[in-house]
């Protein structure tokens, strides 16, 4: 078995009793090194969601992906292999751990009814059903098949989709696929502003 330097330190950390010139001495524990908190953590390669440098990040989670473990983030740091950031991160990237462990995260669907002064909870099924119903109603109400000059328009003018710029290419493509097929023209994105 190999002994690492850390083990040496652990040995050193054990206190003892020794005799000194002037009497007895309860030897304190010298050099108690903290354990490296990510020593056996699982490492996932990801990309920072903030600016467009696209820094590689390593997300450390507890567990070794065994079935009986729910992973929990314990640390995030830069990916030293990533050619652009080479392990560095900015103050936003460095705090990504908190973005994942944030108690402010939304965790359940909610609805605010017309005239209501507060949110109420709603099941996913009901929420999605109601949204689909709204979508169809508004599309059917506002769909323009031919424009004033009788030319094919096939557009839905009553619904707008606005997308953020921190989601994936694939999600964005699915947005274009679904929304264009619904006929949306008010299709805009953070990229505009």
């Amino acid at each position: 078995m190999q002994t690492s330097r850390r083990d040496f330190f652990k040995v050193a950390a054990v206190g003892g009793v020794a005799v000194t010139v002037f009497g007895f001495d309860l030897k304190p524990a010298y050099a108690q090194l903290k354990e490296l908190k990510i020593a056996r953590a699982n490492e996932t390669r990801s990309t920072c969601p903030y600016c467009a440098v696209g820094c590689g990040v390593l997300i450390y989670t507890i567990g070794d992906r065994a079935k009986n473990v729910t992973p929990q983030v314990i640390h995030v740091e830069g990916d030293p292999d990533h050619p652009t950031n080479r392990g560095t991160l900015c103050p936003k990237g460095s705090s990504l751990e908190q973005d994942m462990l944030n108690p402010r995260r939304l965790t359940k669907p909610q609805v605010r009814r017309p005239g209501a002064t507060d949110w109420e909870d709603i099941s996913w099924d009901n929420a999605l059903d109601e949204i689909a119903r709204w979508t169809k109603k508004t599309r059917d109400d506002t769909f323009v098949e031919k424009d004033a000059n009788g030319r094919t328009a096939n557009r839905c003018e009553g619904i707008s989709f606005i997308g953020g710029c921190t989601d994936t290419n694939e999600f964005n493509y699915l947005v274009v696929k679904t929304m264009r097929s619904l006929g949306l023209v008010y299709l805009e994105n953070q990229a505009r502003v």
Partner: protein
Amino acid sequence: MTTDAVSRSSAAHNEEMVPRYTLAERVNHWIGALAYIYLLITGLAFWSPYLYWLAAVVGGGPVARAWHPWVGLIFTASLFWSFKQWHGDMKIDDADRAWAKAIPNYIQNEDDKLPPVGRFNYGQKLFFWAMFYSVILLLLSGITLWYTEALPWSLRFVRYAAILIHASVALFTIGLFLIHVYMSAILEEGSFGSMVHGYVTRAWAWTFHRSWYEQVSGGSRRVQ
């Protein structure tokens, strides 16, 4: 006065007890003394690595650090109480100055060659005042050390002064303390007891504090 009476009285009379310290004075003294001993042990632990083990004796470094300032406050309070009790008796007068000139006699145990002194001799008075002023310095420097973090960085020279003052003054009081203990507990027989039970023999009082003896013996002497 008959010879018999004289001879009888001379032994018994010499051993007769006169009150020297009130209960309050004794309680206060021992509060102060115990506090000082604690401060000494913990202070010495912080003073020298070779004595750091002393901290372990009183519960370990952090405990010693936590209690040292509080006990310091007790010691300070005790000394202030002493001041209230004794400041009248501690006034330095001409008799003391005369006594001071004869100090070599005192050192050489030639007490009979010393001029008579009152309740406290010049040395005791010096000790008292030295201790009193030291504790003020210790208090001020000690509070600084107690709450180092509260002192702004721009006033850091206060910190620098405080560590030196606290250590040097403490050392000074250790000297005082050693002399005090030596003289009262070892050198001068009967002194120690007086601080325990409050009484001294007439002979002790006559020997060491004759003026005081004469003051107090008046009321308690046999009616002639």
